[in-house]
């Protein structure tokens, strides 16, 4: 069934109030889709839980008194048991969910200044972090709450905004204030990560800060978004990498422009192939490939745009991993987290 032919709307399900400063990031628990984490300029992380009876969301826990500055991003481990938090205080916290409470079980130190993003690889054996100090760090998860720095990757010439592991392979992606996206990969099993590709303006890349990276479920496409007001879609022949034929380079597939008139801070690809974008124009955009069956190749079109989704800039949009209903969470400078549902108009 073609989504473009249906009459869809993005309906606000609930507004989650609690943070006392801008909310930078939201993250759905990958195992329990009734748990959501958000982090803020108020130096805290909030864990929100959906009641199985009333279906309404409430704050289950506030993770505070560990980070002394803004918590810029948060990321659940694939098991859903651990939450990693990246802070402007220069540290990355690892929190364990003990059921009734969350406890900070480890603090990763090493970056010279603000840590901006943290990402777990698909198996949960590695973490990556990035910072204004221009470096990307890979941490090995040793067990027993021990984390060991496995690599310090230098290559970006400016502040690194986000790191994101590939969904099926141990390939790491980073994007930066230097307008590029870098791909890091270890050809051998010795874990010697190298920059294997840089997507810049001459490879049809972005012309200003790249803020976010997200992959589709199979991992053969990624979407990036930027201060240049565009979203870009990239593709690679990952079957080549899976069969051990070496690195498969990423190439530009298309550019979505003209949909936002302020910086696009976030983009996220859902498991059923809907791309969401959140921007400084307070709007959320949804995009789909309406030509995916055609011989002409993909053509991404605007499915809908929700103007004034928040009262201020939107910093993060994330689709729920649950396949039952299309839920989207958003976080904003207005201090709110919102839960949205994509519904067919009655």
């Amino acid at each position, binding site marked *: 069934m073609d989504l473009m032919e249906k009459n869809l709307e993005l309906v606000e399900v609930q507004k989650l109030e609690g943070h006392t400063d801008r909310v930078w990031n939201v993250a759905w628990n990958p195992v329990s889709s009734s748990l959501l984490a958000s982090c803020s*300029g108020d130096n805290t992380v909030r864990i929100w839980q959906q009641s199985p009876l009333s279906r309404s969301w409430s704050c289950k826990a506030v993770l505070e008194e560990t980070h002394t500055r*803004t918590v810029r991003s948060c990321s659940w481990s694939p098991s859903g048991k651990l939450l990693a938090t990246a802070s402007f205080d220069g540290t990355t916290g690892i929190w364990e969910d003990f059921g009734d409470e969350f406890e900070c079980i480890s603090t990763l130190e090493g970056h010279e200044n603000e840590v901006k993003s943290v990402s777990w690889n698909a198996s949960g054996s590695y973490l990556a972090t990035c910072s204004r100090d221009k470096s990307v760090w890979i941490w090995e998860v040793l067990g027993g709450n021990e984390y060991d720095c496995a690599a310090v990757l230098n290559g970006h010439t400016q*502040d690194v*905004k986000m790191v994101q592991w590939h969904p099926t392979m141990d390939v790491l992606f980073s994007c930066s*204030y230097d307008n590029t996206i870098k791909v890091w990969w270890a050809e051998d099993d010795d874990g010697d990560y190298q920059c294997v590709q840089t997507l810049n303006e001459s490879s049809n890349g972005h012309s200003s800060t790249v803020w976010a990276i997200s992959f589709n479920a199979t991992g053969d496409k990624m979407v990036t978004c930027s201060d240049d007001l565009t979203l870009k879609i990239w593709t690679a022949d990952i079957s080549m990498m899976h069969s051990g034929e070496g690195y498969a380079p990423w190439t530009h597939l298309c550019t979505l422009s003209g949909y936002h008139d*302020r*910086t696009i801070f976030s983009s996220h690809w859902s498991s059923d192939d809907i791309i969401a974008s959140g921007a*400084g*124009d307070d709007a959320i955009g949804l995009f789909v490939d309406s030509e995916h069956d055609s011989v002409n190749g993909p053509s991404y079109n605007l499915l809908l745009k929700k103007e004034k989704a928040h009262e*201020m800039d939107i910093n993060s949009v994330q689709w729920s991993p649950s396949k039952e209903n299309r839920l989207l969470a958003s976080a904003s400078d207005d201090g709110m987290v919102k839960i949205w549902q994509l519904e067919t108009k009655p």
Partner: protein
Amino acid sequence: MVSGLINENPTVYERKERRVRTDSTNTDEFSVEPIDQLEIFDHIRDIRDPEHPYSLEQLKVLTEDSVEVDDGKSYVRVTFTPTVEHCSMATIIGLSVRVKLMRSLPPRYKIDIRVAPGSHATEAALNKQLNDKERVAAALENPNLVEMVDECLSPSFDDA
């Protein structure tokens, strides 16, 4: 003797007369008056220069024409002119203007800050930094920078 100042002898200009901006023909005290150029200029004209005992208006870093506003679109752009091309204080000036506007304008406002085209040696880098909200947020958590910004925003001594 070297004073250590970036610009030792800045030109100081007369301050413009303060106009009363209320429209006297409008007698309805509950009517909504749109935010205009002069109102925004009034918020930022008295910001102090980081290294001289003068306001940004007195040094012509800012004039009324520095402000472009569209109240309907909740948008403002402020273009300032550093006194010298290699002014290392331009970041502090830009941050001070942004902080003052963030505190003075309704939260719906989108604010862009830039240096006047051709007025600074590292114009593009400066503009990018001043408009990266993550960099601004991090800067405003840095006690040294906050102290400098607060100094620029403190009420000036010769104001009535």
